[in-house]
């Protein structure tokens, strides 16, 4: 099997309100799975997609284009349309960037952005012009950021590539050039959740993201005692409840 065990996408058939879950880079649908199971228990239909190149082999990310990820979200949206009349999109980290951009393409009921970076570190920006050549010399970056996990057991079983393909970071960089505009265009109910002890590229970006969104109905929640991986780390139950409250309130209102 190509897809790593534990990295499979999932579809839980429930009610007419659907949640489309989009994981981060270079992670796996597993990052969203506990959240998906929780939302299923609340009666929602849930689909956790696998972004192209993830949970298989990192070399696939050497030839990825951002459009592959966005068309993957389109696939998930189309599947959910088979059972749902309202669809919420919930994205984590890169998945949140993609979700924010995707909201411009389709009719969605609401958006949840978890630990979403507003822009990449400036090094990525400076290196971007050299990337067409650089990517052949420097294929994989080994992240050196210290761990920000509180739940060490969840960290141990967390499925992700140990390396970040440099070419894919370039794709993310280009994608994120469009993020401020995309956020400004968002008018649907939006919930922004950030982890206060996040040490990734998304650290302290929640406020930028929140303030950029044009929605009248928007909320910003800061979670204490959690690292970047909000839907897996120590405060996940609290995160799940916030998301459920949001989806419940918005889906009933419309």
């Amino acid at each position, binding site marked *: 099997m190509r897809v790593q065990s534990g990295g499979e996408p999932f579809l839980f058939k429930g009610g007419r309100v659907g949640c489309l879950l989009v994981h981060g880079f270079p992670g796996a649908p597993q990052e969203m799975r506990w959240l998906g199971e929780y939302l299923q228990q609340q009666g929602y239909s849930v689909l956790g997609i696998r972004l*192209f190149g993830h949970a298989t082999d990192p070399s*696939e990310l050497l030839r990825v284009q951002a459009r592959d990820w966005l068309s993957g979200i389109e696939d998930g949206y189309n599947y959910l349309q088979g059972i749902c009349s309202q669809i919420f999109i919930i994205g984590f980290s890169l998945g949140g960037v993609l979700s924010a951009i995707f909201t411009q393409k389709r009719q969605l009921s609401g958006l949840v952005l978890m630990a979403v970076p507003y822009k990449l570190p400036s090094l990525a920006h400076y290196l971007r012009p050299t990337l067409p050549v650089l990517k052949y010399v420097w294929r994989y970056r080994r992240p050196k950021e210290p761990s920000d996990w509180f739940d060490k057991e969840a960290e141990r079983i967390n499925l992700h590539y140990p390396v970040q393909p440099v070419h894919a970071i370039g794709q993310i960089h280009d994608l994120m050039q469009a993020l401020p505009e995309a956020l400004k265009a968002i008018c649907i109910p939006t919930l922004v959740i950030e982890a206060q002890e996040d040490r990734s590229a998304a650290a302290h970006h929640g406020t930028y993201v929140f303030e950029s969104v044009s929605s009248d109905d928007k909320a910003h929640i800061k979670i204490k005692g959690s690292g970047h991986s909000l839907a897996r780390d120590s405060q996940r139950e609290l995160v799940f409840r916030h998301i459920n409250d949001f989806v419940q309130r918005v889906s009933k209102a419309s």
Partner: protein
Amino acid sequence: MSFIMPGAEPYYLPGNRIGCLLVHGFTATPQELSELGSHLNHQGYSVLGVRLFGHGTRWQDLARSKWTDWLSSVEDGYHLLKQSCDQIIPIGLSTGAVLNLILASQIRFPAIVAMATPSALPSIKALQILYPFLPFLSLFFPALKKGKPDWRDPEALLARVQYDHYPLKAVYEFGRCVDALQGALPLVRSPLLLLHSSEDTFVLPKHSERIASSVASSDVRLQLVNNSNHVISSDAQRQEVFQLTSAFIADVLGTAQA
């Protein structure tokens, strides 16, 4: 704005706990199996029609893809269906059937339906000769425009959503995919229905005959249909194909349940 061509979207039709996994062919889209999907859904089955990676967007995406990406797309569909279905029946056309059979060498399914399945490169002289040079040729000719269609049902052809080009690199990947099929076939043990058009000039019916004699399944049925081109799920005889497919599933599952 959308990356997926209108009409090329994958679909999920909820039904009972028997799931039909529909996998389309090379350069085609989920659309070529959508009518079959509706037919099966009417019979009560759950249906999921996947979109293979690189398909249904623009042919340049297909030119970038490897056949293993297509296999991952099939696996994704399998995992999505598995949550709400106890039994999964892969149903594929052409390359889609090849991918299903490769998956079936690792997973035992209650039944498989393989339509217009190639067991090797199509017997086109130029393709046989040029095949090893395709990656090199693709540097100068990234894609080849498709030839004249040979459809019996002109309306079905009109409704068809597909690329009108064959990316040469992807044709090379297709060849690697049918290579991988050779090792997979002796490991396939699931009951298998092979459907093929007797008038298929692109992939000759003998390809299905070869598959029938290579698999390890004890229940293998080969059924030819007439008055159709390669794409038997969409062309003039499609109703017969639908009937044969659902009758086979009912028969095999009925026997299995008894």
